[in-house]
Protein backbone atom coordinates (compact mmCIF):
# COMPACT_ATOMS: atom_id res chain seq x y z
CA UNK A 1 0.00 0.00 0.00
CA UNK A 2 2.83 2.34 0.84
CA UNK A 3 4.47 2.05 -2.54
CA UNK A 4 1.12 2.42 -4.25
CA UNK A 5 0.46 5.60 -2.29
CA UNK A 6 3.84 7.06 -3.08
CA UNK A 7 3.46 6.30 -6.76
CA UNK A 8 0.02 7.89 -6.88
CA UNK A 9 1.27 10.97 -5.00
CA UNK A 10 4.02 11.50 -7.52
CA UNK A 11 1.56 10.94 -10.35
CA UNK A 12 -0.87 13.36 -8.73
CA UNK A 13 1.79 16.04 -8.47
CA UNK A 14 2.58 15.59 -12.13
CA UNK A 15 -1.13 15.70 -12.93
CA UNK A 16 -1.52 19.02 -11.12
CA UNK A 17 1.44 20.40 -13.00
CA UNK A 18 -0.12 19.11 -16.21
CA UNK A 19 -3.41 20.83 -15.45
CA UNK A 20 -1.74 24.13 -14.77
CA UNK A 21 0.32 23.85 -17.96
CA UNK A 22 -2.72 22.97 -20.04
CA UNK A 23 -4.66 25.97 -18.79
CA UNK A 24 -1.63 28.24 -19.10
CA UNK A 25 -1.29 27.61 -22.80
CA UNK A 26 -4.96 27.35 -23.73
CA UNK A 27 -5.66 30.70 -22.10
CA UNK A 28 -2.92 32.47 -23.94
CA UNK A 29 -4.14 31.14 -27.25
CA UNK A 30 -7.06 33.52 -26.94
CA UNK A 31 -4.83 36.58 -26.67
CA UNK A 32 -3.69 38.81 -23.85
CA UNK A 33 -5.61 41.38 -21.78
CA UNK A 34 -3.81 44.47 -23.11
CA UNK A 35 -6.62 45.48 -25.45
CA UNK A 36 -9.21 44.99 -22.74
CA UNK A 37 -7.39 47.26 -20.35
CA UNK A 38 -6.96 50.20 -22.64
CA UNK A 39 -9.45 52.92 -23.57
CA UNK A 40 -10.81 52.93 -27.09
CA UNK A 41 -8.59 55.70 -28.35
CA UNK A 42 -5.28 54.02 -27.58
CA UNK A 43 -2.95 53.95 -30.57
CA UNK A 44 -0.92 51.01 -31.80
CA UNK A 45 2.17 52.29 -30.02
CA UNK A 46 0.31 52.72 -26.74
CA UNK A 47 -0.88 49.13 -27.01
CA UNK A 48 2.59 47.82 -27.74
CA UNK A 49 4.12 49.82 -24.92
CA UNK A 50 1.67 48.43 -22.39
CA UNK A 51 2.01 44.93 -23.82
CA UNK A 52 5.75 45.17 -23.44
CA UNK A 53 5.53 46.53 -19.91
CA UNK A 54 3.26 43.63 -18.93
CA UNK A 55 5.61 41.15 -20.53
CA UNK A 56 3.23 39.65 -23.04
CA UNK A 57 5.49 40.19 -26.01
CA UNK A 58 7.96 37.63 -24.74
CA UNK A 59 7.94 34.06 -26.10
CA UNK A 60 5.34 31.86 -24.44
CA UNK A 61 7.96 29.44 -23.15
CA UNK A 62 9.72 32.25 -21.30
CA UNK A 63 6.47 33.38 -19.72
CA UNK A 64 5.67 29.79 -18.79
CA UNK A 65 9.01 29.15 -17.15
CA UNK A 66 8.73 32.37 -15.21
CA UNK A 67 5.32 31.27 -13.98
CA UNK A 68 6.59 27.86 -12.92
CA UNK A 69 9.49 29.46 -11.10
CA UNK A 70 7.02 31.70 -9.31
CA UNK A 71 4.88 28.73 -8.34
CA UNK A 72 7.91 26.95 -6.95
CA UNK A 73 8.24 29.85 -4.53
CA UNK A 74 4.55 29.53 -3.66
CA UNK A 75 3.93 32.86 -5.34
CA UNK A 76 0.65 32.99 -7.22
CA UNK A 77 1.47 36.31 -8.83
CA UNK A 78 -0.46 39.53 -9.03
CA UNK A 79 -3.84 40.07 -10.66
CA UNK A 80 -3.42 41.90 -13.94
CA UNK A 81 -6.67 43.75 -13.48
CA UNK A 82 -6.72 44.47 -9.77
CA UNK A 83 -2.97 44.87 -9.24
CA UNK A 84 -3.07 43.09 -5.90
CA UNK A 85 -1.65 39.66 -4.99
CA UNK A 86 -3.74 36.81 -6.33
CA UNK A 87 -3.45 35.01 -3.02
CA UNK A 88 -5.23 37.89 -1.28
CA UNK A 89 -8.12 37.83 -3.73
CA UNK A 90 -8.52 34.06 -3.60
CA UNK A 91 -8.30 34.05 0.18
CA UNK A 92 -11.01 36.70 0.34
CA UNK A 93 -13.36 34.82 -1.98
CA UNK A 94 -12.73 31.20 -1.06
CA UNK A 95 -14.78 31.24 2.16
CA UNK A 96 -17.86 32.29 0.20
CA UNK A 97 -17.55 29.40 -2.21
CA UNK A 98 -16.99 26.98 0.65
CA UNK A 99 -19.99 28.40 2.45
CA UNK A 100 -22.17 28.01 -0.61
CA UNK A 101 -20.87 24.50 -1.27
CA UNK A 102 -21.54 23.53 2.33
CA UNK A 103 -25.04 24.94 2.15
CA UNK A 104 -25.71 23.17 -1.13
CA UNK A 105 -24.35 19.92 0.26
CA UNK A 106 -26.62 20.30 3.25
CA UNK A 107 -29.61 20.76 0.99
CA UNK A 108 -28.63 17.91 -1.30
CA UNK A 109 -27.90 15.46 1.51
CA UNK A 110 -30.70 16.70 3.72
CA UNK A 111 -33.30 16.07 1.05
CA UNK A 112 -31.64 13.49 -1.17
CA UNK A 113 -30.55 11.05 1.47
CA UNK A 114 -33.84 10.60 3.30
CA UNK A 115 -35.61 10.52 -0.05
CA UNK A 116 -33.32 7.79 -1.31
CA UNK A 117 -33.71 5.73 1.82
CA UNK A 118 -37.46 6.11 1.70
CA UNK A 119 -37.47 5.11 -1.93
CA UNK A 120 -35.52 1.96 -1.24
CA UNK A 121 -37.66 1.00 1.69
CA UNK A 122 -40.90 1.69 -0.12
CA UNK A 123 -39.74 0.16 -3.37
CA UNK A 124 -42.27 -0.05 -6.18
CA UNK A 125 -44.83 2.16 -4.49
CA UNK A 126 -46.36 5.41 -5.68
CA UNK A 127 -44.35 7.19 -2.98
CA UNK A 128 -41.14 6.01 -4.58
CA UNK A 129 -42.14 7.36 -7.95
CA UNK A 130 -43.28 10.65 -6.46
CA UNK A 131 -40.03 11.09 -4.56
CA UNK A 132 -38.00 10.23 -7.63
CA UNK A 133 -39.84 12.85 -9.63
CA UNK A 134 -39.28 15.38 -6.84
CA UNK A 135 -35.53 14.97 -6.69
CA UNK A 136 -35.29 14.85 -10.44
CA UNK A 137 -37.00 18.23 -10.72
CA UNK A 138 -33.96 19.87 -9.24
CA UNK A 139 -31.71 18.23 -11.76
CA UNK A 140 -33.89 19.16 -14.71
CA UNK A 141 -33.76 22.92 -14.58
CA UNK A 142 -30.89 25.20 -15.51
CA UNK A 143 -29.75 26.95 -12.34
CA UNK A 144 -29.94 30.39 -13.90
CA UNK A 145 -33.66 29.84 -14.36
CA UNK A 146 -34.46 28.18 -11.06
CA UNK A 147 -32.32 30.89 -9.48
CA UNK A 148 -34.26 33.79 -10.92
CA UNK A 149 -37.56 32.07 -10.15
CA UNK A 150 -36.51 31.67 -6.53
CA UNK A 151 -35.42 35.30 -6.39
CA UNK A 152 -38.64 36.51 -7.94
CA UNK A 153 -40.78 34.46 -5.59
CA UNK A 154 -38.99 34.84 -2.29
CA UNK A 155 -37.22 38.16 -2.66
CA UNK A 156 -39.36 40.32 -4.88
CA UNK A 157 -42.89 39.02 -4.34
CA UNK A 158 -42.73 37.72 -0.79
CA UNK A 159 -39.84 39.89 0.33
CA UNK A 160 -38.54 37.42 2.87
CA UNK A 161 -35.15 36.76 1.37
CA UNK A 162 -32.44 39.07 0.07
CA UNK A 163 -32.36 39.20 -3.71
CA UNK A 164 -28.61 39.07 -4.05
CA UNK A 165 -25.27 39.45 -2.41
CA UNK A 166 -24.14 38.65 1.08
CA UNK A 167 -26.03 40.10 4.01
CA UNK A 168 -25.89 37.52 6.70
CA UNK A 169 -26.92 33.91 6.92
CA UNK A 170 -30.16 34.51 5.02
CA UNK A 171 -28.29 35.28 1.81
CA UNK A 172 -26.98 31.77 1.37
CA UNK A 173 -30.38 30.10 1.52
CA UNK A 174 -31.64 30.73 -2.00
CA UNK A 175 -28.32 30.08 -3.73
CA UNK A 176 -27.81 26.92 -1.67
CA UNK A 177 -31.23 25.64 -2.67
CA UNK A 178 -30.62 26.39 -6.34
CA UNK A 179 -27.24 24.68 -6.27
CA UNK A 180 -28.14 21.84 -3.95
CA UNK A 181 -31.14 20.88 -6.04
CA UNK A 182 -28.72 19.74 -8.75
CA UNK A 183 -27.13 17.03 -6.68
CA UNK A 184 -30.18 15.94 -4.70
CA UNK A 185 -30.99 13.29 -7.23
CA UNK A 186 -27.49 11.83 -7.17
CA UNK A 187 -27.62 11.36 -3.42
CA UNK A 188 -31.08 9.91 -3.62
CA UNK A 189 -30.00 7.43 -6.25
CA UNK A 190 -26.89 6.36 -4.44
CA UNK A 191 -28.68 6.03 -1.13
CA UNK A 192 -31.45 4.05 -2.75
CA UNK A 193 -29.06 1.67 -4.50
CA UNK A 194 -26.95 1.18 -1.43
CA UNK A 195 -29.89 0.54 0.83
CA UNK A 196 -31.49 -1.80 -1.68
CA UNK A 197 -28.29 -3.78 -1.85
CA UNK A 198 -28.17 -4.06 1.88
CA UNK A 199 -31.79 -5.11 2.07
CA UNK A 200 -30.96 -8.15 -0.03
CA UNK A 201 -28.29 -9.30 2.34
CA UNK A 202 -28.69 -12.34 4.49
CA UNK A 203 -28.09 -10.55 7.74
CA UNK A 204 -31.21 -8.51 7.20
CA UNK A 205 -33.48 -11.54 6.95
CA UNK A 206 -31.60 -13.06 9.86
CA UNK A 207 -32.08 -9.97 11.97
CA UNK A 208 -35.76 -9.79 11.16
CA UNK A 209 -36.17 -13.49 11.83
CA UNK A 210 -34.58 -12.82 15.18
CA UNK A 211 -37.34 -10.34 15.84
CA UNK A 212 -35.54 -7.02 15.39
CA UNK A 213 -37.87 -4.26 14.26
CA UNK A 214 -37.37 -3.05 10.73
CA UNK A 215 -36.48 0.42 11.91
CA UNK A 216 -33.73 -0.97 14.13
CA UNK A 217 -32.39 -2.98 11.24
CA UNK A 218 -32.26 0.05 9.03
CA UNK A 219 -30.57 2.36 11.49
CA UNK A 220 -28.26 -0.13 13.16
CA UNK A 221 -26.96 -1.98 10.16
CA UNK A 222 -28.08 -0.84 6.77
CA UNK A 223 -27.21 2.82 7.08
CA UNK A 224 -23.80 2.03 8.45
CA UNK A 225 -22.97 -0.26 5.59
CA UNK A 226 -24.46 2.02 3.00
CA UNK A 227 -22.31 4.88 4.24
CA UNK A 228 -19.26 3.97 2.17
CA UNK A 229 -20.61 4.58 -1.32
CA UNK A 230 -22.33 7.73 -0.06
CA UNK A 231 -19.03 9.08 1.21
CA UNK A 232 -17.32 8.11 -2.01
CA UNK A 233 -19.94 9.93 -4.03
CA UNK A 234 -19.55 13.00 -1.84
CA UNK A 235 -15.93 13.27 -2.81
CA UNK A 236 -16.90 13.58 -6.45
CA UNK A 237 -19.99 15.65 -5.85
CA UNK A 238 -18.07 18.29 -3.92
CA UNK A 239 -15.89 18.82 -6.96
CA UNK A 240 -19.06 19.04 -9.06
CA UNK A 241 -20.60 21.55 -6.69
CA UNK A 242 -17.63 23.85 -6.94
CA UNK A 243 -18.02 23.81 -10.69
CA UNK A 244 -21.81 24.18 -10.73
CA UNK A 245 -21.46 27.16 -8.44
CA UNK A 246 -20.23 29.25 -11.35
CA UNK A 247 -23.66 30.09 -12.70
CA UNK A 248 -25.41 30.22 -9.34
CA UNK A 249 -22.82 32.69 -8.10
CA UNK A 250 -23.34 34.89 -11.15
CA UNK A 251 -27.11 34.92 -10.82
CA UNK A 252 -27.14 35.61 -7.09
CA UNK A 253 -24.12 37.93 -7.14
CA UNK A 254 -22.53 35.56 -4.67
CA UNK A 255 -18.87 36.62 -4.35
CA UNK A 256 -17.30 33.20 -4.67
CA UNK A 257 -14.54 31.78 -6.84
CA UNK A 258 -16.91 30.65 -9.60
CA UNK A 259 -18.04 34.16 -10.38
CA UNK A 260 -14.46 35.36 -10.08
CA UNK A 261 -13.33 32.70 -12.53
CA UNK A 262 -15.89 33.61 -15.19
CA UNK A 263 -15.09 37.31 -14.92
CA UNK A 264 -11.35 36.68 -14.94
CA UNK A 265 -11.56 34.51 -18.03
CA UNK A 266 -13.49 37.24 -19.83
CA UNK A 267 -10.98 39.82 -18.61
CA UNK A 268 -8.04 37.59 -19.54
CA UNK A 269 -6.73 37.96 -16.01
CA UNK A 270 -4.46 34.95 -16.38
CA UNK A 271 -2.95 34.74 -12.88
CA UNK A 272 -6.35 34.50 -11.21
CA UNK A 273 -7.70 31.89 -13.60
CA UNK A 274 -4.54 29.83 -13.19
CA UNK A 275 -4.74 30.06 -9.43
CA UNK A 276 -8.38 28.97 -9.36
CA UNK A 277 -7.71 26.06 -11.71
CA UNK A 278 -4.69 25.10 -9.63
CA UNK A 279 -6.79 25.13 -6.50
CA UNK A 280 -9.57 23.08 -8.02
CA UNK A 281 -7.08 20.66 -9.56
CA UNK A 282 -5.50 20.19 -6.18
CA UNK A 283 -8.84 19.55 -4.49
CA UNK A 284 -10.14 17.32 -7.26
CA UNK A 285 -7.03 15.18 -7.57
CA UNK A 286 -6.76 14.84 -3.82
CA UNK A 287 -10.39 13.77 -3.59
CA UNK A 288 -9.93 11.32 -6.46
CA UNK A 289 -6.96 9.80 -4.75
CA UNK A 290 -9.00 9.31 -1.62
CA UNK A 291 -11.86 7.84 -3.60
CA UNK A 292 -9.57 5.46 -5.45
CA UNK A 293 -8.02 4.32 -2.21
CA UNK A 294 -11.48 3.65 -0.83
CA UNK A 295 -12.41 1.75 -3.99
CA UNK A 296 -9.37 -0.46 -3.81
CA UNK A 297 -10.20 -1.19 -0.21
CA UNK A 298 -13.79 -1.98 -1.01
CA UNK A 299 -13.33 -3.96 -4.22
CA UNK A 300 -10.63 -6.61 -3.82
CA UNK A 301 -10.63 -7.46 -7.51
CA UNK A 302 -8.98 -4.19 -8.31
CA UNK A 303 -6.28 -4.63 -5.76
CA UNK A 304 -5.44 -8.13 -6.76
CA UNK A 305 -5.22 -7.43 -10.45
CA UNK A 306 -1.73 -6.54 -11.53
CA UNK A 307 -1.10 -3.29 -9.63
CA UNK A 308 2.57 -3.75 -10.27
Amino acid at each position, binding site marked *: MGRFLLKRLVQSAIAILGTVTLIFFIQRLAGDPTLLMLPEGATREDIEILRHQLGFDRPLIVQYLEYIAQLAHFDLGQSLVQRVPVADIIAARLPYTLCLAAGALLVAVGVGLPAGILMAVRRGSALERALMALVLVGQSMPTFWSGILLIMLFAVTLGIMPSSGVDGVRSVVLPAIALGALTMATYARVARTAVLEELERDYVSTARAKGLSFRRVVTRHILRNAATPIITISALEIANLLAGAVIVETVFAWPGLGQLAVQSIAARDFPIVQAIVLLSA*FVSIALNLVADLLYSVVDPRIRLE*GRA
Partner: protein
Amino acid sequence: MTTADVTPAADPGALARMARELRPIAPFLVIFLCFALLALLASAIAPYNPNTQNLLARLKPPGTAVRGIFYLLGTDEVGRDLLSRLIFGARVSLSVAMLSVCVSTLIGTLLGTIAGFYRGATEIIIMRFTDIVLSIPAILLAIITIAVLGPGLQNVVLVLGFTRWPRYARVAYGQTLAAMGLTFMRASAFNGASAPRLILRHVLPNIAGAIIVVATLEFGLMVLFEAGLSFLGLGVQPPTPSWGSMLSVGRNYMGTAWWIATFPGICLFLLVLSINVIGDRLRDRLDPRSGR
Protein backbone atom coordinates in the same frame (compact mmCIF):
# COMPACT_ATOMS: atom_id res chain seq x y z
CA MET B 1 -24.80 -10.68 -17.17
CA THR B 2 -26.82 -12.48 -19.77
CA THR B 3 -25.01 -13.95 -22.69
CA ALA B 4 -28.11 -14.97 -24.56
CA ASP B 5 -30.91 -12.63 -25.49
CA VAL B 6 -34.45 -13.73 -25.09
CA THR B 7 -36.25 -12.59 -28.20
CA PRO B 8 -39.93 -11.73 -28.04
CA ALA B 9 -40.73 -14.37 -30.61
CA ALA B 10 -39.25 -17.09 -28.50
CA ASP B 11 -40.82 -15.79 -25.28
CA PRO B 12 -44.39 -14.56 -25.77
CA GLY B 13 -44.63 -13.29 -22.22
CA ALA B 14 -41.67 -10.96 -22.75
CA LEU B 15 -43.63 -8.30 -24.62
CA ALA B 16 -46.24 -8.14 -21.91
CA ARG B 17 -43.52 -7.96 -19.30
CA MET B 18 -41.80 -5.18 -21.18
CA ALA B 19 -45.05 -3.25 -21.47
CA ARG B 20 -45.68 -3.62 -17.77
CA GLU B 21 -42.18 -2.48 -16.95
CA LEU B 22 -42.44 0.51 -19.21
CA ARG B 23 -45.84 1.67 -17.95
CA PRO B 24 -44.58 3.87 -15.08
CA ILE B 25 -42.26 5.75 -17.39
CA ALA B 26 -44.61 5.73 -20.39
CA PRO B 27 -45.55 9.42 -20.18
CA PHE B 28 -41.89 10.39 -20.15
CA LEU B 29 -41.15 8.15 -23.11
CA VAL B 30 -43.95 9.84 -24.99
CA ILE B 31 -42.65 13.29 -24.11
CA PHE B 32 -39.16 12.44 -25.24
CA LEU B 33 -40.39 10.90 -28.47
CA CYS B 34 -42.49 14.00 -29.13
CA PHE B 35 -39.46 16.22 -28.76
CA ALA B 36 -37.41 13.92 -30.93
CA LEU B 37 -40.11 14.06 -33.60
CA LEU B 38 -40.21 17.84 -33.35
CA ALA B 39 -36.49 17.95 -33.83
CA LEU B 40 -36.57 15.68 -36.85
CA LEU B 41 -39.57 17.22 -38.59
CA ALA B 42 -39.00 20.83 -37.55
CA SER B 43 -39.11 22.29 -41.05
CA ALA B 44 -42.38 20.54 -41.77
CA ILE B 45 -44.11 21.30 -38.48
CA ALA B 46 -43.04 24.86 -37.72
CA PRO B 47 -45.59 27.39 -38.98
CA TYR B 48 -43.08 30.12 -39.83
CA ASN B 49 -39.40 30.77 -40.34
CA PRO B 50 -37.88 30.90 -36.86
CA ASN B 51 -35.46 33.67 -37.81
CA THR B 52 -37.74 36.22 -39.45
CA GLN B 53 -37.88 39.34 -37.32
CA ASN B 54 -40.55 41.98 -37.17
CA LEU B 55 -39.69 44.91 -34.95
CA LEU B 56 -43.28 46.06 -35.05
CA ALA B 57 -44.51 42.77 -33.64
CA ARG B 58 -42.07 42.30 -30.80
CA LEU B 59 -43.07 41.10 -27.33
CA LYS B 60 -46.58 40.19 -28.40
CA PRO B 61 -48.45 37.85 -26.03
CA PRO B 62 -49.55 34.35 -27.06
CA GLY B 63 -52.55 34.32 -29.35
CA THR B 64 -51.93 37.68 -31.02
CA ALA B 65 -52.20 38.21 -34.72
CA VAL B 66 -50.24 40.92 -36.48
CA ARG B 67 -50.78 41.65 -40.16
CA GLY B 68 -52.39 38.31 -40.76
CA ILE B 69 -49.72 36.29 -39.03
CA PHE B 70 -50.99 34.38 -36.03
CA TYR B 71 -48.51 33.93 -33.22
CA LEU B 72 -49.77 31.01 -31.16
CA LEU B 73 -47.17 31.39 -28.45
CA GLY B 74 -46.41 35.05 -28.96
CA THR B 75 -43.27 36.73 -30.21
CA ASP B 76 -39.84 37.29 -28.77
CA GLU B 77 -37.74 40.42 -28.26
CA VAL B 78 -37.23 41.04 -31.98
CA GLY B 79 -40.63 39.88 -33.15
CA ARG B 80 -39.91 36.28 -34.15
CA ASP B 81 -42.58 33.61 -33.78
CA LEU B 82 -41.97 31.81 -30.51
CA LEU B 83 -43.63 28.56 -31.54
CA SER B 84 -41.43 28.14 -34.60
CA ARG B 85 -38.35 28.97 -32.58
CA LEU B 86 -39.42 26.48 -29.96
CA ILE B 87 -39.76 23.73 -32.55
CA PHE B 88 -36.42 24.44 -34.20
CA GLY B 89 -34.92 24.88 -30.78
CA ALA B 90 -35.75 21.26 -30.06
CA ARG B 91 -33.54 20.32 -32.96
CA VAL B 92 -30.66 22.45 -31.73
CA SER B 93 -30.86 21.45 -28.08
CA LEU B 94 -31.24 17.76 -28.85
CA SER B 95 -28.54 17.65 -31.48
CA VAL B 96 -26.04 19.50 -29.32
CA ALA B 97 -26.66 17.07 -26.49
CA MET B 98 -26.63 13.99 -28.72
CA LEU B 99 -23.55 14.94 -30.69
CA SER B 100 -21.55 15.95 -27.66
CA VAL B 101 -22.47 12.73 -25.86
CA CYS B 102 -21.37 10.79 -28.93
CA VAL B 103 -18.05 12.62 -29.05
CA SER B 104 -17.31 12.11 -25.38
CA THR B 105 -18.49 8.50 -25.40
CA LEU B 106 -16.21 7.67 -28.30
CA ILE B 107 -13.14 9.38 -26.92
CA GLY B 108 -13.72 8.29 -23.35
CA THR B 109 -14.56 4.68 -24.03
CA LEU B 110 -11.64 4.29 -26.39
CA LEU B 111 -9.11 5.76 -24.01
CA GLY B 112 -10.49 4.05 -20.94
CA THR B 113 -10.64 0.65 -22.56
CA ILE B 114 -7.12 0.90 -23.90
CA ALA B 115 -5.87 1.95 -20.49
CA GLY B 116 -7.59 -0.95 -18.77
CA PHE B 117 -6.57 -3.47 -21.38
CA TYR B 118 -2.91 -2.74 -21.84
CA ARG B 119 -2.10 -1.62 -18.27
CA GLY B 120 1.42 -0.48 -17.51
CA ALA B 121 2.72 2.80 -18.90
CA THR B 122 -0.26 3.29 -21.23
CA GLU B 123 -2.58 3.01 -18.29
CA ILE B 124 -0.65 5.53 -16.24
CA ILE B 125 -0.41 8.10 -19.00
CA ILE B 126 -4.03 7.85 -20.02
CA MET B 127 -5.47 7.79 -16.54
CA ARG B 128 -3.35 10.68 -15.33
CA PHE B 129 -4.36 12.67 -18.40
CA THR B 130 -7.93 11.82 -17.49
CA ASP B 131 -7.28 13.14 -14.01
CA ILE B 132 -5.87 16.33 -15.44
CA VAL B 133 -8.88 17.09 -17.58
CA LEU B 134 -11.25 15.95 -14.85
CA SER B 135 -9.64 18.20 -12.28
CA ILE B 136 -10.55 21.34 -14.18
CA PRO B 137 -14.16 22.30 -13.50
CA ALA B 138 -15.91 21.42 -16.75
CA ILE B 139 -17.62 24.73 -17.15
CA LEU B 140 -14.40 26.68 -16.67
CA LEU B 141 -12.61 24.53 -19.22
CA ALA B 142 -15.53 25.04 -21.57
CA ILE B 143 -15.48 28.81 -21.14
CA ILE B 144 -11.73 29.02 -21.59
CA THR B 145 -11.79 26.86 -24.69
CA ILE B 146 -14.68 28.76 -26.22
CA ALA B 147 -12.77 31.97 -25.58
CA VAL B 148 -10.17 30.50 -27.92
CA LEU B 149 -12.39 28.79 -30.49
CA GLY B 150 -15.32 31.18 -30.42
CA PRO B 151 -18.91 30.14 -29.68
CA GLY B 152 -21.36 28.53 -32.07
CA LEU B 153 -23.03 25.15 -32.42
CA GLN B 154 -20.02 23.26 -33.80
CA ASN B 155 -17.60 24.55 -31.22
CA VAL B 156 -20.04 24.01 -28.38
CA VAL B 157 -20.39 20.35 -29.37
CA LEU B 158 -16.62 19.97 -29.59
CA VAL B 159 -16.00 21.70 -26.32
CA LEU B 160 -18.68 19.75 -24.47
CA GLY B 161 -17.37 16.53 -25.94
CA PHE B 162 -13.82 17.31 -24.93
CA THR B 163 -14.66 18.31 -21.39
CA ARG B 164 -16.83 15.32 -20.52
CA TRP B 165 -14.96 12.34 -21.94
CA PRO B 166 -13.00 11.68 -18.72
CA ARG B 167 -16.16 10.48 -17.01
CA TYR B 168 -16.62 7.81 -19.64
CA ALA B 169 -12.93 6.97 -19.57
CA ARG B 170 -12.97 6.29 -15.85
CA VAL B 171 -15.99 4.05 -16.08
CA ALA B 172 -14.65 2.24 -19.13
CA TYR B 173 -11.35 1.77 -17.35
CA GLY B 174 -12.90 0.38 -14.20
CA GLN B 175 -15.23 -1.91 -16.09
CA THR B 176 -12.45 -3.11 -18.38
CA LEU B 177 -10.36 -4.00 -15.37
CA ALA B 178 -13.24 -5.96 -13.95
CA ALA B 179 -13.91 -7.68 -17.25
CA MET B 180 -10.25 -8.58 -17.62
CA GLY B 181 -10.46 -10.51 -14.43
CA LEU B 182 -13.14 -12.86 -15.66
CA THR B 183 -12.04 -16.39 -16.34
CA PHE B 184 -13.34 -16.62 -19.85
CA MET B 185 -11.27 -13.55 -20.72
CA ARG B 186 -8.14 -15.18 -19.49
CA ALA B 187 -9.09 -18.30 -21.35
CA SER B 188 -9.52 -16.44 -24.61
CA ALA B 189 -6.21 -14.66 -24.17
CA PHE B 190 -4.62 -17.97 -23.43
CA ASN B 191 -6.06 -19.30 -26.65
CA GLY B 192 -4.11 -16.66 -28.56
CA ALA B 193 -6.89 -14.21 -29.43
CA SER B 194 -5.49 -10.87 -30.61
CA ALA B 195 -5.94 -7.67 -28.62
CA PRO B 196 -8.43 -5.89 -30.92
CA ARG B 197 -10.49 -9.03 -31.16
CA LEU B 198 -10.53 -9.43 -27.41
CA ILE B 199 -11.52 -5.82 -26.90
CA LEU B 200 -14.25 -5.79 -29.50
CA ARG B 201 -15.67 -9.21 -28.91
CA HIS B 202 -15.44 -9.51 -25.17
CA VAL B 203 -14.56 -6.30 -23.34
CA LEU B 204 -16.84 -3.82 -25.07
CA PRO B 205 -20.06 -5.82 -24.74
CA ASN B 206 -19.38 -6.22 -21.05
CA ILE B 207 -18.76 -2.58 -20.36
CA ALA B 208 -21.47 -1.30 -22.69
CA GLY B 209 -24.04 -1.37 -19.92
CA ALA B 210 -22.03 0.84 -17.61
CA ILE B 211 -21.18 3.22 -20.42
CA ILE B 212 -24.82 3.58 -21.38
CA VAL B 213 -25.57 4.37 -17.76
CA VAL B 214 -23.13 7.25 -17.83
CA ALA B 215 -24.32 8.40 -21.24
CA THR B 216 -27.93 8.68 -20.10
CA LEU B 217 -26.87 10.74 -17.10
CA GLU B 218 -24.74 12.95 -19.30
CA PHE B 219 -27.39 13.51 -21.95
CA GLY B 220 -29.60 15.55 -19.70
CA LEU B 221 -26.56 17.32 -18.28
CA MET B 222 -25.41 18.35 -21.76
CA VAL B 223 -28.76 19.95 -22.49
CA LEU B 224 -28.42 21.99 -19.29
CA PHE B 225 -24.76 22.70 -19.97
CA GLU B 226 -25.55 24.22 -23.34
CA ALA B 227 -28.20 26.35 -21.65
CA GLY B 228 -25.62 27.48 -19.12
CA LEU B 229 -23.16 28.42 -21.83
CA SER B 230 -25.89 30.41 -23.57
CA PHE B 231 -26.57 32.23 -20.33
CA LEU B 232 -22.95 33.30 -20.28
CA GLY B 233 -23.23 34.39 -23.89
CA LEU B 234 -21.00 31.59 -25.14
CA GLY B 235 -23.43 29.03 -26.48
CA VAL B 236 -25.20 28.72 -29.78
CA GLN B 237 -25.01 32.09 -31.45
CA PRO B 238 -27.92 34.25 -32.65
CA PRO B 239 -30.15 34.00 -34.51
CA THR B 240 -30.06 30.20 -34.20
CA PRO B 241 -32.71 29.23 -31.65
CA SER B 242 -31.82 26.98 -28.77
CA TRP B 243 -34.00 26.57 -25.73
CA GLY B 244 -31.08 27.54 -23.53
CA SER B 245 -30.44 30.86 -25.23
CA MET B 246 -34.16 31.64 -25.48
CA LEU B 247 -34.45 30.98 -21.77
CA SER B 248 -31.48 33.10 -20.85
CA VAL B 249 -32.72 36.05 -22.92
CA GLY B 250 -36.28 35.60 -21.72
CA ARG B 251 -35.22 35.82 -18.06
CA ASN B 252 -34.92 39.55 -18.45
CA TYR B 253 -38.51 39.80 -19.64
CA MET B 254 -40.23 37.85 -16.91
CA GLY B 255 -42.24 40.87 -15.86
CA THR B 256 -43.29 42.10 -19.28
CA ALA B 257 -43.17 39.11 -21.60
CA TRP B 258 -43.16 36.00 -19.48
CA TRP B 259 -43.81 33.70 -22.43
CA ILE B 260 -40.36 34.18 -23.93
CA ALA B 261 -38.74 32.33 -21.04
CA THR B 262 -41.59 30.21 -19.78
CA PHE B 263 -42.24 28.07 -22.85
CA PRO B 264 -38.61 27.18 -23.53
CA GLY B 265 -38.17 26.71 -19.80
CA ILE B 266 -41.03 24.24 -19.62
CA CYS B 267 -39.80 22.39 -22.68
CA LEU B 268 -36.26 22.24 -21.35
CA PHE B 269 -37.53 21.04 -18.03
CA LEU B 270 -39.74 18.34 -19.53
CA LEU B 271 -37.00 17.19 -21.87
CA VAL B 272 -34.37 16.87 -19.18
CA LEU B 273 -36.85 15.36 -16.74
CA SER B 274 -37.91 12.68 -19.21
CA ILE B 275 -34.30 11.94 -20.09
CA ASN B 276 -33.48 11.59 -16.43
CA VAL B 277 -36.46 9.34 -15.69
CA ILE B 278 -35.86 7.13 -18.72
CA GLY B 279 -32.18 7.05 -17.93
CA ASP B 280 -32.95 6.02 -14.40
CA ARG B 281 -35.05 3.15 -15.61
CA LEU B 282 -32.33 2.07 -18.04
CA ARG B 283 -29.87 2.20 -15.20
CA ASP B 284 -32.08 -0.02 -13.13
CA ARG B 285 -32.08 -2.63 -15.88
CA LEU B 286 -28.43 -2.44 -16.79
CA ASP B 287 -26.78 -1.95 -13.44
CA PRO B 288 -26.31 -5.41 -11.95
CA ARG B 289 -26.45 -3.98 -8.46
CA SER B 290 -30.01 -2.78 -8.80
CA GLY B 291 -31.24 -5.89 -7.10
CA ARG B 292 -33.96 -6.78 -9.58
